[in-house]
């Protein structure tokens, strides 16, 4: 199937001249020299050169390309059978979150090669989870981790170095208690707080233009640093919720950003974690609901969506959208060591007061009988 000339990104007058000269498809233009084209379509030399460059850049790859359909594809993606994809997936690991319940619900942790969005109200623990993931991605492979570096893009200014040091120290201590054989002992020598901090690449973006530029430049950075396994953007909502007059432009920019992130995740084999804020949506009957920000179409962008919310005084994490795991809600807590399972330190004290309060009531009832 051929691509029509009117779909190229050229100025309308040039397109008109091309169509009037009888050129309908880009295939007609491929074999022409600029001089020939300028004579036949009565274009200037400069315009003819520009047309041919556009055609070669956009149309040439698509005509011969693989699985991408008719439109332009810079590198035609090769098609895989499902069996090959399964084998590739089994080699990809997940990044543990150190909360075993959440890891179980996610099937091992945050999957590498996919984009995950973490939404939640302020203070529920999104940045804490991001900092935990930035440390966890560096856990050596002999301990079951991924052993990679991390690029941390901070748009809110919420990256606190002292907190990272605490989380890193706790992770190092946790792993050193698990050392069983020589390989792990050797790995522990390179897994210290200093090396953890030196494997984090921190970028501070102040507005959406800087964020988009950074994401645009990332593929080159990732090619130079093949050990990067995680990209954290905290948060993606903050720069896009200020001073945006044209909401349709915002939607377009966000969709383009989402596609770039997905391409990076699958092309370079990294996990992408983004945080999002919550906003209130008023539905018909005057009821209001707390929903993730950035609009309806952004909801389609991340592959996996985690919703962190409060249930009374407990913090809950819900898997809202995932291609290969059922929705589930687990409880977690934030301790001085970082993001952990809820419960071990909390449950015993809470049990005792409950039993204490039950007994007097029971004894009173007995007394009244």
């Amino acid at each position: 199937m051929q691509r029509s000339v009117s779909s190229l990104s050229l100025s309308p007058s040039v397109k008109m001249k091309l169509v009037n000269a009888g050129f309908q498809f880009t295939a007609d233009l491929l074999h022409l020299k600029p001089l020939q084209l300028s004579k036949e379509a009565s274009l200037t030399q400069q315009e003819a050169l520009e047309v041919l460059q556009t055609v070669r850049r956009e149309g040439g790859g698509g005509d011969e390309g693989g699985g991408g359909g008719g439109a332009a594809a810079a590198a035609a993606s090769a098609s895989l059978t499902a069996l090959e994809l399964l084998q590739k997936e089994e080699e990809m690991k997940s990044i543990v979150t150190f909360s075993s319940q959440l890891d179980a619900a996610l099937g091992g942790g945050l999957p590498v090669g996919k984009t995950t969005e973490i939404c939640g109200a302020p203070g529920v623990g999104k940045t804490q989870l991001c900092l935990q993931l930035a440390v966890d991605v560096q856990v050596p492979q002999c301990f079951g981790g991924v052993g990679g570096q991390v690029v941390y893009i901070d748009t809110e200014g919420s990256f606190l170095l002292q907190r990272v040091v605490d989380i890193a120290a706790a992770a190092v201590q946790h792993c050193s208690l698990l050392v069983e054989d020589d390989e792990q002992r050797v790995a522990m020598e390179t897994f210290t707080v200093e090396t953890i901090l030196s494997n984090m690449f921190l970028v501070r973006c102040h507005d959406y233009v800087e964020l988009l530029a950074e994401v645009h430049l990332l593929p080159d950075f990732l090619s130079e640093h093949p050990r990067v396994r995680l990209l954290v953007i905290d948060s993606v909502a903050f720069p896009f919720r200020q001073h945006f007059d044209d909401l349709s432009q915002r939607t377009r920019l966000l969709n383009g950003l989402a596609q770039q992130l997905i391409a990076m995740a699958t092309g370079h084999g990294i996990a992408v974690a983004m945080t999002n804020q919550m906003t209130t949506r008023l539905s018909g009957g005057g009821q209001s609901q707390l929903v993730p920000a950035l609009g309806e179409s952004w909801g389609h962008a991340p592959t996996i969506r985690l919703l962190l919310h409060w249930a009374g005084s407990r913090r809950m994490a819900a898997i809202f959208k995932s291609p290969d795991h059922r929705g589930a809600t687990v409880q977690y807590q934030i301790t001085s060591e970082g993001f952990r399972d809820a419960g071990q330190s909390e449950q015993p004290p809470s049990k005792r007061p409950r039993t204490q309060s039950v007994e007097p009531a029971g004894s009173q009832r007995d007394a009244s009988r």
Partner: protein
Amino acid sequence: MVVLREGMCPGLDEDLVRDLRAADIKTVEDVVSSDIEELAQRCSVSYKALFAIRRVLLAQHTAFPVSGADLYEELLSSTAILSTGNPSLDKLLDSGLYTGEITELSGGPGSGKSQVCFGVAVHISYHLKQSVIFIDTTGGLTASRLLQMLQAETSNTEEQVSVGGGSVKAVIVDSVSAVISPLLGGKQNEGMSLMIQVAGVLKTMAKDFNVAALVTNHVTRSGSGELQPGLGVSWSHIPRTRILLERVERATPVSHSSMRSATLIKSSRQPCHIKEEFDLQWGSRSKEASSGKRKLDETDSG
């Protein structure tokens, strides 16, 4: 407006093209609509050669009418209906996906579009023994989920390996809006034409190769606040059948029910706005567990 080029048909060589162009005959339309005798005299070319060229060009570039009976016979022999594996969806689609047509599945995030696509792919490759081409633009294709669904159908690993094998009968694109919606709107003039081109490719492919095309689309909120499929009115004419998937709203906003409701919003075979509710787990459970209560128990243990 097709420009005359040498080699377009036997007898049309470079000299002839040059002579014709000198006589101001540049396109196929000019050749076909001009008087052959006069043209032969003006260009000093043989009448017979021009006549033969004209005949070949006409045959190449004209559309010939087909009788309705022949068309019906052809449709009966070539169209196949592929069941989706989900009886509720099949009821909405009038027994399944029709080859030669585009069917669209739209829904909000987490409404189950990708899951339905996986289910259709597994069903076609396992039960119908045909091949499926799955084009994924969202990064959501996980082979382990396909394996899970396949394992629910058969626990025999030999059978699992030998699925498919027939010709390609379905092309599933998940999702078509993820790559096209960044191109629409604003100052980008070519986005709309690219979208229509993708639609044209899909339709021609579906017709020429006798495959069923299933695409997914995102949703947006209309002015009055209700959900509608994305990509606008121009896209809405492309698919023959459109289904909107929604989560079934229960009490708490973060409930994890796997019930979904499908509404038929465009169809040339069934009355519109009929709704069906179904359980997303149909892809990962055996056919015996049909009562609602047992499903709840199984979610605790599964």
